[in-house]
């Protein structure tokens, strides 16, 4: 049973204001990737949490799946101008993963997320704590397919979706910012859909 909080509308307000500027609503789930889709075997899959944490750890698929899962039903916004509303996502909250890694060291200011193919994306720590991010394994109640980043991807719904890196392998906390693949290739360093932070100012698009 899910409780409905009468009068609560959330970010963007009522339905008519749910879409960030310059976006269109879709009901399908478009696939957008750069390069070939890696097929990651859960037998060899690992997730490492390291850098500025007190006890770096590496989890295998079975260990990861023993952790408490959380579900969030929310909206996603892709920089290629589509948004999907009300998708349920299941995964492990980054707060829990950080806790398993002994908590953040005081100089942890950024998260650099890396995928199996070596792509990285960067995020301020303040955007990935407090329940804002998870490592997700399911969307719409189904396991994530390889096209959508399965078996596990990062999930940070309040930023454009390229920040929700597919095929996640490593979460490294750092003192300095290290702009990732898209961020050095003309995309905005932060990516707030409500402020239309699509491209970096000097990208010349």
């Amino acid at each position, binding site marked *: 049973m899910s409780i409905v909080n009468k009068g*609560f509308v959330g970010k963007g307000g009522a339905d008519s204001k749910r879409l960030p500027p310059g976006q269109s609503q879709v009901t399908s789930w478009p696939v957008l990737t750069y390069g070939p889709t890696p097929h990651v075997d859960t037998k060899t899959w690992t997730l490492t949490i390291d850098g500025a944490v007190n006890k770096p750890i590496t989890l295998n698929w079975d260990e990861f799946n023993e952790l408490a899962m959380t579900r969030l039903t929310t909206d996603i916004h892709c920089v290629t101008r589509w948004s999907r509303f009300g998708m349920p996502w299941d995964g492990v909250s980054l707060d829990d993963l950080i806790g398993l890694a002994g908590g953040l060291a005081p100089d942890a200011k950024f998260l650099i997320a890396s995928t199996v193919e070596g792509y990285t994306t960067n995020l*301020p720590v303040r955007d990935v704590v407090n*329940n804002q991010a998870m490592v997700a394994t399911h969307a719409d109640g189904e396991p994530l397919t390889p096209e959508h980043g399965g078996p596990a991807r990062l999930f940070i719904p309040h930023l454009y979706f390229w920040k929700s890196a597919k095929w996640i392998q490593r979460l490294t906390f750092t003192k300095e910012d290290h702009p990732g693949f898209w961020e050095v290739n003309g995309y905005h360093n932060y990516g707030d859909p409500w402020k239309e932070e699509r491209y970096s100012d000097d990208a010349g698009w």
Partner: protein
Amino acid sequence: MSVTEESPTVKTFVFKTPHPITNIAGQHYELRLTAENGYQAARLYSAVVTGTGKEEVTLTIMNVKNGEVSPYISEDLKVGDEVEIRGPFGKFFIWTGEEYRPVFLVGGGSGVVPLHAIFTAHRDSKSKAEMKLLYSSHTYEEILYKDDFLSSPDVAVTLTRNAPEDWEGLTGRVTKDMLGAIVDSFEAQPICYVCGMSLFVDAITEALQVAGIPSTSIKTERFG
């Protein structure tokens, strides 16, 4: 659910739960709101009372201007309404009576909520370890838990915006000197718990390291 006002912008809520709940000082709960169209938003809130297995959860929540979740709870939620709460969570930013080392707590704004839980858990325990708190609040009116804090010799409050004329405590933002003086007043080097917004946490952890505290002795919790 019952509500008490702590300050002009902060209220303490007691939620009845369907089963008994126990938590450790410093842990937090997830509170989730669901709109009629299914959209959800969830935030974390610290446990105010260190759990005794009662059928209730107590949360102190600051109404953050233009926030997504806290204004709804502060302004729209009525006694009798239901909300979804999960938890408790947190294995790191916690304190139990087994902690034998002295502790220095540093909090800003609503960041004092989990530190207050730790402070009262320590006060009500048999622990002989020293514990002190430095609390940064904008104004006198915004100081939370005045009854527990203002009479305690182990608590220093600094007011950063304005102070009443008869205020005898500290004023201005937390400085390296303020932190250093408290660090030096401990009999042995303390471990530090720092909680508040990210900019506050960054400034405090840097200053604590200047005051000689190794980064491995600093625990942080960032509210956003």
